[in-house]
């Protein structure tokens, strides 16, 4: 469906938060296919806004070898973009949750939070640089001490130095929670293996890999 870009804010170097009118209902955690109506195949992005918000937003970073994202980054308010109906089944449930993300994999959890799904969730967010802790103020305000940051590329005040799995060097996986993993394949696979090795049933782990 053709949509008009309302916002395309660069919220960190090379990272954009693009918004259009929300035309459909969706469940927090779902995705949309985004394209430009040209020869490039559309790509799937997690929705990064609340399901009652007037705007539907996506979060993306410019891929060095990517074909679509450099073009998406150049979109200005008033430009046209193609956005599909929402789909996918990485959907939050009312059960207590642990959200684990790397980089822009934070998007579906932001949608869950903004949709009022779980404000008692534990969030682990791993990034390379301090400026990649997207929406940090909101997380801090809403989750408080349940918001844990990990920075692998540099020292970052208040964040643990290292990758997101460092959390489990000092904590046992909390019991009675469902684990949602979102981000690059390597993190998701390693984290899933780690959780399983620490006694979490694989049926309590939901994984969305950014293919």
């Amino acid at each position, binding site marked *: 469906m053709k949509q008009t870009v309302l916002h395309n804010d660069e919220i960190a170097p090379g990272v954009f938060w693009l918004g259009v009118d929300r035309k459909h209902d969706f469940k927090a955690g779902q995705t949309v296919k985004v394209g430009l109506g040209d020869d490039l195949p559309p790509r799937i992005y997690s929705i990064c806004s609340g399901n009652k918000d007037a705007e539907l937003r996506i979060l993306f970073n410019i891929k060095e070898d990517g074909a679509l994202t450099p073009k998406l980054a150049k979109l200005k308010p008033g430009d046209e973009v193609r956005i599909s109906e929402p789909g996918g089944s*990485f959907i939050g449930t009312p059960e207590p949750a642990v959200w684990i993300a790397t980089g822009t994999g934070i998007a579906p959890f932001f949608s869950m939070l903004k949709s009022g799904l779980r404000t008692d969730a534990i969030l682990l967010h791993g990034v390379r640089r301090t400026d990649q802790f997207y929406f940090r103020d909101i997380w801090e305000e809403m989750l408080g001490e349940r918001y844990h940051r990990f920075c692998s590329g540099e020292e970052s005040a208040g964040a643990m130095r290292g990758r997101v799995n460092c959390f489990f060097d000092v904590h046992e996986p909390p019991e009675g929670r469902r684990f949602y993993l979102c981000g690059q*394949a*390597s993190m998701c696979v390693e984290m899933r293996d780690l959780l399983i090795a620490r006694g979490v049933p*694989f049926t309590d782990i939901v994984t*969305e*890999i950014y*293919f």
Partner: protein
Amino acid sequence: MKPALFGKTLNELTELAVALGLPKFTGKQLADWLYKKEIDSIESMSNLSKKARALLAENYCFGLHAPAKVQESVDGTRKYLFKTATENFIETAMIPFKERRTVCVSSQVGCKMGCLFCMTGKQGFQGQLSAGDIVNQIRSIAEYNEVTNIVYMGMGEPFDNLDEVLKSIEILTAEWGYAMSPRRITVSSIGITPGLIRFLNESEAHLAISLHTPFHEERQQLMPVQIAYPLEEVIDEIRRWDFSGQRRVSFEYIVFHGLNDTVRHVKELCRLLNGIRCRINLIRFHPVPGTPLQGTDEETLQWFKDELNKRGLLTTIRASRGQDIYAACGLLSTKALSGKKG
């Protein structure tokens, strides 16, 4: 490193010849040398002028890579380790069975798909293979002249590298290439719908889909792809195609103890695949380190097969081959070699 000639299509060879100021027909001559004759150097292309060969050698390399290592199983299966043009490592299996010699090729270095039961998925993704890297896995093994079948079931998800996979199939099947029948080639995918549609449109090779359970929730736990591309969508697309002729579709199903080996699964598989002319290949699970899954026992495996057959779904059990050298289904991995370039 110079780009390789091996792995280029006739159109690409013609274009590069013209760009070098060579006659257009040089493209066809190059294709003959690359894919119909057993040479491994530009210098050996004796019907090209010395000047043309020098010009080509100045700008390109031939592009064949001999295997770095070969292991042989007690059952005759061989596993080849190749170093790719990008200095990564991949594995290829050659599976002999009676008169057949089936080569199981990799399409990526590692894999992004993260299936819970797969060793390749545990090594993450290190890069795409070129069409040359893919075809080289057939051309550079000892059994090259005996190969009867090719299956894209090695490392990686073929539909996540579809441009190069389709190019490799073109080289294998075109008259100017190896002129193999596409009916001797099977591409196996976990079901990425846009790739599936393109593959079915642009190729005549057989299709295999990794199914593993007909239930959404269970498949989502085993295969994260289910979240983005649900099986129902894949099956709907397959229903739009005619598989009643020579082109075949099959479904792969690793049978896990207590997870997907029940009568409930039999019934749901029958409902899901009703009306599709297909075969189900049941596969024994080859455990990977740290897995929470277990393979089903032989008695249940046989029962599961019989129940599906009784209900009209043609079902077979795939023989496990090369398990002792980690060449069997789901066991290929070059994780230990990741980062060991050169």
